[in-house]
């Protein structure tokens, strides 16, 4: 070693020693590290949790940040929103919800003392249902659900131009404008049932079973079979050999199969759609088969012994997307009430299952009344032509009537209104200019609404040709890439759809808390449903020198519940309902049902009243009934006998009396809340009817019972005031020219006043 080299080494040694001495005073900062996190299994819309693997060996505080495609994702209210999902963070614990169902990588960076390290959260597999992103009723992002498609627009342009109306440019401009306007007005993000919040609470409908009482149920459908309870469905057709298979043999669509998919199409199986309660069991009964059915079917579809449903089984709901549409008031039947209340009173070990009933599709009108509601102004005013209470099964709390709302949160064009409506649920319009439901359909393109034999497809093809039809129903017409086997439809609608969506929510509620009774479920729905269409306006009619509010819009009752005859307590909110169910602490106590209380012919042993309802008079006939029972109301029933000598099958001059058309009824509770039972301009076209006695000629209402849910939570005690009105001096020429069930050409103002013969009320409460 030479001298110079020794000197350099010595200096280096001193320097090293010197630096070592510095470390003791100010330790070197160690950079943080980050490792990749792998999530191998996730479900779309269901939270998955994990831990971010950031570390700093010298204990510096860690902060995390996220990027997507190089751009920083900022947190808003604690939520990081990616194009594929939502992430929340607490310390190093994260919760991620995939909104799109895609496998993905999330870039994250850990920072400690201004030093950083990066890694990824790898979500390698997300179970999904490919059509769920179009199911706006579950999670409304403003998706079109195959309505308002480019194919549809072009088809309309081609058709119109083909008819010689305008040029291609003119029609393109017209339809571009129309479709753009409709996209703004019809597709409103957020107008849904908030099911993702229920899933986020870990509730997907497991442990309960819904019964689909309908036209059939395709038990081997690819998206239903995993939820169908084996060998428990009933084929009610007499002489059938496949007694546990209610699969419909029709080839143009099976209503029940589509209904079942809305309740409980299997979730996260990477097939088709998702039910509201994707893990709820299904039993089908083909009550509406249209064939010759077996004896005692009416009892079987209500779960009576012999139906195979045990009294302790966790049946959540009997979905009943059916009813009768006829322009008369059908009288109440105690026998029917006894049958229909069986699920509520005896199943689930006495806790009760829910009957979930479609409210009807006759807001605009039915058929046998012809053009009545076009000509009497109901359609233009926005008054319901039929009232839900025309069907006696909707006049007691044991059936829960469900109304229908659109993808923009407003009333559908068809959903029958009435004070009997409990809640509403999405269903949509017709799937062309506005979304309908995307749900299961009979399998293959040979059967079902989608496919060659679907009744709409077949009729349109015959009328317009296949090319135009394919453009108007792109998803249902064979060949759509999202529906290659035609196992799904995008045009299902009606309160038929609203009811199963509500049944799905009921199933989630009872899955969340099996201790709840049927009355608890009603209470939860009343307390948690969304006040949709908040600006819905009242309709006021001028009657003589006065006026009458025929539709009230939203009314807040004295117990704080918002109610609307179009929507009941509003659109069901699965998230809020499940949250309340999980921590439910309300004690409703024993149900009390009072005796009928009132006067006249509807009270046993009393003689009929004879009180005129003055014609075209806003004051009307006011009757009061004093209630002494101290009950909190769960439902109020009102019963009437109202006669008119001319109420028959038409007058001698070929018209019908206006006695039914003009009748309106408004009830005021002791707390001052008003509820309109009949608005007038409703389709009381025929004389009253009874399922046991037939026609009651001379009566507008006979043993007619109305349910009002509007007083929920109020006290029944005090003075009830009932105002009966003849709401007009009505003389109408019917534009149908006599093409109605009575073959009458007009409505003539009632020559005699209608007469109140009996009036009473009954309280369901606690």
């Amino acid at each position, binding site marked *: 070693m030479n001298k110079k080299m020794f000197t350099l080494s010595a200096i280096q040694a001193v320097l090293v020693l010197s630096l070592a001495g510095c470390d003791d005073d100010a330790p070197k900062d160690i950079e943080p590290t980050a490792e990749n996190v792998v999530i191998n299994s996730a479900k779309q819309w269901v939270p998955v949790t994990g831990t971010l693997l950031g570390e700093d060996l010298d204990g510096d505080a860690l902060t995390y940040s996220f990027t997507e495609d190089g751009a920083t994702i900022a947190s808003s209210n604690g939520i990081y929103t990616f194009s594929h999902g939502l992430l929340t963070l607490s310390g190093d614990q994260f919760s991620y919800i995939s909104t799109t169902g895609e496998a993905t990588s999330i870039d994250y960076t850990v920072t400690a003392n201004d030093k950083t390290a990066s890694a990824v959260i790898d979500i390698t597999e997300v179970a999904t249902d490919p059509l769920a992103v179009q199911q706006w009723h579950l999670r409304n992002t403003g998706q079109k659900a195959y309505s308002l498609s480019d194919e549809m627009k072009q088809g309309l342009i081609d*058709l*119109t131009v083909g*008819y010689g*109306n*305008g040029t291609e440019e003119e029609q393109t401009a017209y339809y571009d404008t129309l479709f753009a306007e409709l996209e703004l007005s019809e597709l409103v993000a957020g107008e849904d049932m908030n099911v993702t919040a229920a899933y986020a609470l870990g509730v997907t409908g497991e442990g309960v079973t819904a019964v689909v009482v*309908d*036209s059939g149920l395709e038990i081997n459908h690819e998206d239903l079979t995993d939820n169908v309870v084996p060998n428990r469905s009933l084929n009610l057709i007499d002489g059938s050999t496949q007694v546990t298979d209610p699969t419909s043999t029709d080839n*143009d669509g099976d*209503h029940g199969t*589509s209904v079942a998919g809305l309740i409980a199409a299997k979730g996260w199986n990477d097939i088709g759609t998702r039910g509201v309660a994707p893990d709820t069991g299904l039993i089908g009964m083909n*009550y*509406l*088969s*249209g*064939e*010759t*059915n077996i004896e*005692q*079917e*009416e*009892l079987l579809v209500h779960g*009576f012994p012999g139906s195979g449903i045990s009294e302790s089984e966790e049946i959540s709901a009997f979905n009943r*997307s*059916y*009813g*009768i*549409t*006829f322009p*008369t008031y059908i009288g109440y039947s*105690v*026998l*029917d009430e*006894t*049958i229909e209340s*069986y699920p509520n009173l005896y199943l689930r070990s006495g806790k009760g299952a829910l009957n979930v009933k479609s409210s009807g*599709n*006759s807001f605009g009108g039915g*058929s*046998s009344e012809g053009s009545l509601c076009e000509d009497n102004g109901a359609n233009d005013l926005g008054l319901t032509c039929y009232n839900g209470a025309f069907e006696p099964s909707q006049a007691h709390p044991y059936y829960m009537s469900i109304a229908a709302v659109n993808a923009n949160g407003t009333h559908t064009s*068809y959903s029958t209104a009435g004070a009997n409506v409990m809640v509403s649920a999405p269903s949509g*319009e*017709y799937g062309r*200019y506005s979304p309908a439901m995307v749900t299961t359909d009979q399998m293959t393109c040979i059967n079902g*609404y989608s496919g060659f034999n*679907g*009744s*709409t497809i077949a*009729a349109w093809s*015959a*009328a317009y040709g296949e090319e135009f039809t394919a453009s108007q129903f792109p998803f249902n017409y064979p060949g759509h890439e999202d529906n290659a086997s035609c196992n799904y439809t995008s045009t299902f*609608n*009606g309160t*038929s759809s609203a009811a199963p969506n509500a049944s799905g929510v009921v199933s989630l509620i009872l899955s969340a808390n099996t201790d709840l009774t049927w009355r608890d479920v009603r209470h939860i729905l009343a307390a948690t449903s969304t006040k949709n269409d908040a600006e819905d306006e009242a309709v006021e009619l001028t009657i003589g020198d006065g006026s009458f509010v025929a539709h009230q819009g939203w009314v807040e009752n004295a117990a704080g519940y918002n109610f609307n005859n179009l929507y009941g307590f509003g659109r069901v909110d699965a998230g809020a309902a499940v949250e309340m169910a999980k921590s439910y602490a309300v004690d409703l106590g024993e149900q009390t049902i009072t005796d009928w209380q009132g006067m006249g012919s509807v009270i046993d042993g009393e003689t009929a009243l004879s009180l005129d309802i003055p014609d075209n008079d806003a004051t009307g006939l006011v009757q009061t009934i004093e209630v002494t029972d101290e009950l909190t109301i769960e439902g109020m029933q009102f019963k009437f006998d109202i006669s008119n000598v001319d109420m028959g099958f038409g007058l001698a001059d070929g018209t019908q009396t206006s006695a039914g058309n003009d009748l309106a009824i408004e009830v005021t509770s002791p707390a001052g809340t008003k509820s309109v039972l009949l608005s007038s301009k409703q389709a009381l076209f*025929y004389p009253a009817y009874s*399922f*046991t*006695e*037939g*026609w009651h000629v001379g009566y507008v209402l006979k043993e007619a019972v109305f349910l009002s849910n509007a007083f929920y939570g109020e006290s029944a005690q005090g003075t009830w005031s009932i105002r009966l009105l003849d709401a007009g001096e009505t003389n109408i020429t019917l534009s149908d020219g006599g093409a109605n*069930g009575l073959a009458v050409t007009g409505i003539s103002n009632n020559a005699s006043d209608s007469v109140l013969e009996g009036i009473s009320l009954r309280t369901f409460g606690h």
Partner: protein
Amino acid sequence: MKFNKIVTIATALCLSGLAQASIIDKTLITPTLETKKISTVNNTSAEFSTYKVEPLMATVPSAIASADSVVVSKGTMSIVNIDAASVSDVVGKGSIVRHTLTNELTTLTGNVTVLLNNGVSADELATAAGMEVVSVFSRTNIAILKVSEGKDLVEAYKNLQASGLAAESKIEVTSTIYSAQ
């Protein structure tokens, strides 16, 4: 009927060129919104309960029904016209009746569903009506009675109502009055 509506729409499109979306959508009928169509005046008087007996009709398997005689087909079974010589004097299981509200034809099962008055047994009522007990659901006071072999259901039903032992009763048929909505 649906076809006619569609043709009407097509005509409207031809004439107006720019049909409004809302009008089109409201007019087009989709299967899920169909309701039973009532085409005639339904002022038929009931012969018993809400039904009118159609003695000149019977139910036969569709496979053997003569096309000329079929009034309505109900899947594997059809309601057919029969000649007067085949008419039974007794109304009972299998008899065809017409509902006075819907005008639709259906078949009697021979049963009556009853809501018993409190304290009345199904046997007591059956005896009074000349019927037999099929089922009793005691917690609900509901019982199913059937007309005895060879006995007339109309007569038995009158007896049942006259007995005053039932709060309410309903003739059982093989199809529901309800339809999808």
